[in-house]
């Protein structure tokens, strides 16, 4: 199991190193576009997080949790 995990980790790292090109700062125009952001609309993301937090059992992922609510 431990060997499998080490192999998996090394494979992922190798894949990332191989597949990632050296993109210069002036070549990042498309990446800088607003629609390429992790969360292009902060209020939309915040609202969806709040609704799904209230109606499903799961939460969390790519940020630390904020305040709770008495959502029933």
């Amino acid at each position, binding site marked *: 199991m431990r060997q499998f995990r080490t192999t998996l980790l090394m494979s992922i790292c190798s894949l990332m190193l191989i597949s990632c*090109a050296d993109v210069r700062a*002036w070549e*990042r125009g498309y*990446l800088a576009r607003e*629609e*390429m952001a992790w969360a292009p609309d902060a209020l939309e993301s915040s609202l969806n997080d709040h609704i799904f937090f209230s109606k499903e059992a799961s939460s969390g992922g*790519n940020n630390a949790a*904020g305040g709770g*609510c008495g959502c*029933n």
Partner: protein
Amino acid sequence: MKDSASRNIIALSTTALALPGIALADAPPTQSTISYKLSNYQEDDLSRSETPFGDLERYDIDVHQFQLVSPLGRNMSLHVDANYESLSGASPWYTSRSLDGEPIVNLSGASGISDRRTELSIGSRYYLENGSFGGNIGYSEEDDYRAIYFGFNTEKHYNNDLTTVSAGLSYSSDKVFPTDAALFNRVEEDDKQSSSLFVSVSQIINQVSSFQSALSFTEQSGFLSDPYKLRDFRPDDKTQIAWSNSYRRFFVSANAALHVNYRYYHDDFGISSHTSDLSWHQNLGRTFQIVPTLRYYNQSAAEFFTNVDDFLNPISEYQSSDYRLSAFGAVSGGFSVIADMNSWKITLTAERYLANDKYSAYDVSLPSTALVKYNRISLGIDFRF
């Protein structure tokens, strides 16, 4: 000629570095943005076969969101968020069995519930040459619930800004004080604490795509039951882990961006879930954009979930018929139209969400009767100055 070319490259590089998002969204804002979003969230009524007696109407909620993001000097930014929600309707109170043996649900109160929620959060961020750090503090209040929270996070760039490592933590201290506690034999007042931390790695893959993987841990302790349910006893601590992955790709020929997100979640109530969503951000000329979104969610049930409350069980035994702890799947689809006119941006969004035990890939031995279906419409306005 050569000097001119060099100057152009330097100018281009400088412009690129100044663009927000160029190093995975980490640069101080160059102008202020004030945003407002008005949303209406409306749950479908339950059917008479699910609820033979009493009200069928569920929640109808209006949400007002405000946000200000502004530069603060040369290297700092200020973030202010304020939310106001007003809700009316009813939520499941207890479950029982119908004459033909099927589980049925009874909603709270003939006149339903009416509540308001107000939240204010203030934060700031300091930008360094190779990263940034920031924090926020917030307060949320309802008629029967109060939360005070704070958070801190930092990020650093490596590998010529191709790789970004982020980490953060937050803490929330909550108090619950249900209405009509004495009348319905509810807990009068209790506390809940939540601590959370996350770490993420973002990687630029090439000129048009990037990837992010994040891991978060949350520990909750205190009163985790639902005080408005007639029979709801849950453990007083819960550990949650979530692993999320995001991929972004820009299609130059289509002038559109693809967003793919996936999250795995597990907690020690015994719930596991998978969440996948896709969205396509299609630019139409320089002003308009349309964004269709599709999401699929799928969770297993908590170990102590029951779809028919057992009032003979001792209260020392964990039990809940909360539909959110049942095994179910949910499919939702949304569509946004965005008009970006220099200083102004207007966003219209419509969304439909359908939860059903038949959509679950997990084993559903105890299907819940009160799963939610809802519509949501939003109007958002951003003004940059």
